[in-house]
């Protein structure tokens, strides 16, 4: 046979094989079981919540291991494992706000049929605070004075001081009857097989299989105590590339995707997918650093206000983000703690120039940027390598140049950008005058944020300090400490209005745009509602057309 014939034969074989395999195995194959495919752009670190605060580990909780209370699509809490949310009125919260009592439902069971009891709560608490376990965070369990379990269905939490962010508890529950023997044998839960392959669960699905880097499978929990799920299986496919996620959603290789970038929205809608914007509490914002190392111009509130007036954030939301979001005013927009009287600074470059002139920042040497006392108004502005942030940086550089503020741009990978003072991270070391990321209150929708406290300012003595802004405002510090003790919601709201007003007036932080989670849902997956806190809270109602 000639070489030409061999080549021809090989080509025919390859093409034929592709077409045959494609025709008989490609997308669209129908089987009787209902399998919804979720696309995650990152692989969960673990299925044991104690060991990861990673987003994709956390959002899976509602699939296989419910929270004690969850949040609906309006981010309102509702009881799941307990009979009612504790309050002062129903006696669940004591008059001095130092004791919170939970009453567990009678019908709740693990997927092996064993009842969920207060012993599971006590065990979970013990595992969080035991130093032999390298848990991702001990908060808020390290705020407890103790936990008591007077009977199998009652859990009593006691505090030394009133603790307002108590809704941050019990986002994970460990099966004591399964894991205590493991802990007693190994001396830690760090290496428990359960972390990767939970054998029992409290949620509507149970873990079936996890192939590293590829997929996770969860099948219906036939012993689930709540409403039975309509789907047979949840298949989580790991697709790290954004463009590939979009392609997979368009071809039906995925039914639900998250973190859709704004430019991809029109194409997905055209392909028949529904775009859902979920209020997750995140806001993209500029942090102003007042460290000794940063440009002294930022110590001047007029300069910070001028920056706010010089940036056309409405236009950015409209053009760069396709009008799918808007600028915010505070870190607590889209939450009950927002002060409705505060509105975003308007775009007013004339006002910015006026403020800078009045503060004595003028271009005395004609180099195009303002200066004062020999200090040039040139600011180092850093963020991560995320594309939309880099685009905004370029816009900000142009707009600030028009009012005489020079900008030098810096971009870093996340693990470098967020590296601590002790690890010489640029943000925490005061190497940047302005830094940008998207942030959310730690236990959203609870409003508490720790990194504005004076005690969090990084230093040689406090190398892990989180106050990268180096802002120690005593009034603000006092208010932040006060709100953590205000169990009464109205009092706490009033405190947050004061906090917001100070931060807004002094422009310690400037909202660029509210940063909702953008999800894409295929037309065949129905009844999907998504929450900003517990996204898959109604997973039992999901169905396939």
């Amino acid at each position: 046979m000639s070489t030409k014939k061999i080549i021809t034969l090989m080509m025919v074989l390859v093409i034929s094989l592709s077409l045959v395999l494609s025709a008989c195995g490609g997308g669209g194959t129908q089987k009787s079981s209902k399998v919804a495919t979720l696309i995650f752009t990152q692989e969960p670190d673990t299925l044991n919540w104690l060991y990861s605060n990673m987003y994709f580990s956390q959002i899976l909780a509602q699939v296989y291991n419910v929270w004690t209370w969850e949040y609906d699509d309006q981010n309102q809490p509702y009881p799941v494992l307990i009979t009612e949310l504790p309050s002062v009125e129903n006696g669940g919260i004591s008059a001095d706000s130092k004791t919170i009592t939970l009453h567990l439902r009678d019908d709740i069971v693990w997927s092996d049929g064993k009842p969920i009891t207060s012993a599971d709560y006590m065990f979970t608490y013990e595992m969080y605070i035991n130093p032999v376990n390298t848990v991702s965070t001990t908060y808020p369990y390290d705020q407890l004075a103790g936990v008591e379990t007077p009977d199998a269905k009652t859990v009593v939490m006691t505090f030394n001081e009133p603790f307002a962010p108590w809704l941050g508890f019990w986002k994970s529950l460990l099966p004591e009857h399964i894991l205590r023997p493991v802990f007693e044998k190994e001396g830690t839960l760090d290496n428990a097989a359960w972390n990767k392959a939970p054998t029992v669960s409290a949620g509507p699905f149970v873990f079936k299989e996890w192939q590293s880097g590829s997929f996770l499978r969860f099948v219906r929990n036939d012993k689930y105590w709540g409403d039975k799920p309509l789907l047979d299986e949840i298949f989580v496919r790991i697709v790290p590339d954004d463009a590939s996620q979009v392609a997979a959603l368009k071809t039906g290789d995925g039914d639900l995707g998250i973190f859709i970038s704004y430019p991809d929205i029109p194409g997905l809608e055209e392909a028949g997918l529904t775009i859902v914007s979920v209020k997750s509490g995140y806001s993209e914002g500029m942090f102003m650093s007042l460290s000794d190392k940063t440009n002294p111009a930022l110590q001047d509130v007029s300069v910070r206000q001028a920056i706010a007036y010089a940036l056309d954030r409405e236009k950015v939301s409209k053009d760069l983000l396709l009008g799918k979001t808007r600028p915010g005013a505070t870190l607590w927009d889209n939450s009950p703690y927002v002060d409705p009287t505060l509105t975003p600074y308007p775009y007013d470059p004339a006002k910015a120039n006026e403020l800078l002139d009045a503060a004595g920042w003028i271009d005395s040497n004609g180099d195009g940027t303002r200066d004062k006392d020999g200090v040039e108004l040139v600011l180092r502005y850093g963020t991560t390598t995320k594309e939309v942030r880099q685009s905004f940086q370029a816009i900000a550089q142009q707009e600030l140049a028009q009012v005489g503020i020079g900008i030098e741009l810096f971009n870093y990978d996340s693990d470098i950008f967020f590296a601590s003072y002790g690890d010489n991270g640029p943000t925490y070391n005061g190497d940047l005058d302005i830094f940008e990321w998207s942030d959310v209150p730690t236990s959203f929708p609870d409003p508490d944020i720790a990194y504005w406290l004076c005690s969090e300012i990084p230093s040689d003595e406090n190398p892990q300090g989180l106050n990268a802004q180096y802002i120690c405002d005593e009034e603000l510090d006092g208010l932040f400490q006060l709100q953590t003790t205000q169990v009464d919601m109205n009092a706490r709201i009033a405190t947050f209005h004061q906090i917001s007003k100070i931060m807004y007036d002094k422009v310690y932080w400037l909202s660029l745009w509210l940063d909702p989670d953008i999800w894409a849902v295929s037309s065949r997956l129905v009844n999907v509602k998504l929450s900003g806190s517990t996204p898959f809270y109604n997973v039992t109602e999901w169905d396939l057309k």
Partner: protein
Amino acid sequence: MTRYILRRLLQGIPLLFIISILLFVMLQNMGDPLATMGGRTVTRSEDRARLARQLGLDKPILVQYIYWLVGNDWTHVDVDGDGIAETQGIRKGVLRGDFGNSLVRRQPAMDVILDRLPNTLILMLTSEFVVIIGALVIGVYSAIKQYSLLDNAVTAFAFVGYSMPIFFIALSAMYIFAVNFKRWGLPYLPTVGMFDPQVGETPGQIILHLILPVLAISINSFSAYSRYVRSAMLEAMNQDYIRTARAKGLPRREIIFIHALKNASLPIVTVVGLDLPFLLGGALVTERIFAWPGMGRLFLDHVSRGDTPVVMGIMMLIAIAVIIFQILTDIVYAWLDPRIRYN
């Protein structure tokens, strides 16, 4: 030959030691694994300090390297943060086969790596096989039919394929053969993953999902390989022994495949020998785009999270493979060319 192999293996030990020190020092300066712990918010300062202590990240770099190399079960560590090292260490160290626990996955680093190795080998060996066979067929044909229409066409294709970045080839292939084929109502290929969950993990599904990633890798690598084969064959075909073989009336097929190709194989073996160990590292871009769960993605994911145990494990595996494949390449040299001896 045996002495030569043993000598080369012994030479590899200090080399691996030096490589491990260099890599370890470099990795310590690539970011803070506790910065976000993968979350969307920064880690609390108390948790950073506690985890740094529990995971041994607060130790000087030399101590961390010693723990990585020989373990810490000969000493005590401070687990509860009271300043007293009260708990016996449990790490055995690389020299006793313990690469440590992944900081991200909290499971043995070697388990994390070995989970991905088969997937990488499926993708990379298939691609390498397709590339080598394709390059041999096209390269030999181009050499014996120099400046023919096919030779010119393949040359042009090779240069285009070689000059296109692989992400462009991969995404183009995905959008043409999956997204657009579906839109046009044609049988279409899957975009991502290793199988369709509705069908299951069958050999047919895996082959189907291999087509696009293998195509992307092959187009890029095929171009270089086919040029090597072509030039080596052209050189061999002009040698005196080929003229002699022709004069003696040997069949053309025997001249090309037995005499010319075998002698032309030396430079090709060198290239393949250099490439093979890096197959273990997977295809970083292709695996990411096609969501193929291989070593390339594992490396990217974990290096971006500062997961030293896993990244060191991957790098050391590749370093060992490079040394072994270099020795194998030398052995193949001797087999192909009887003039080469290692005595």
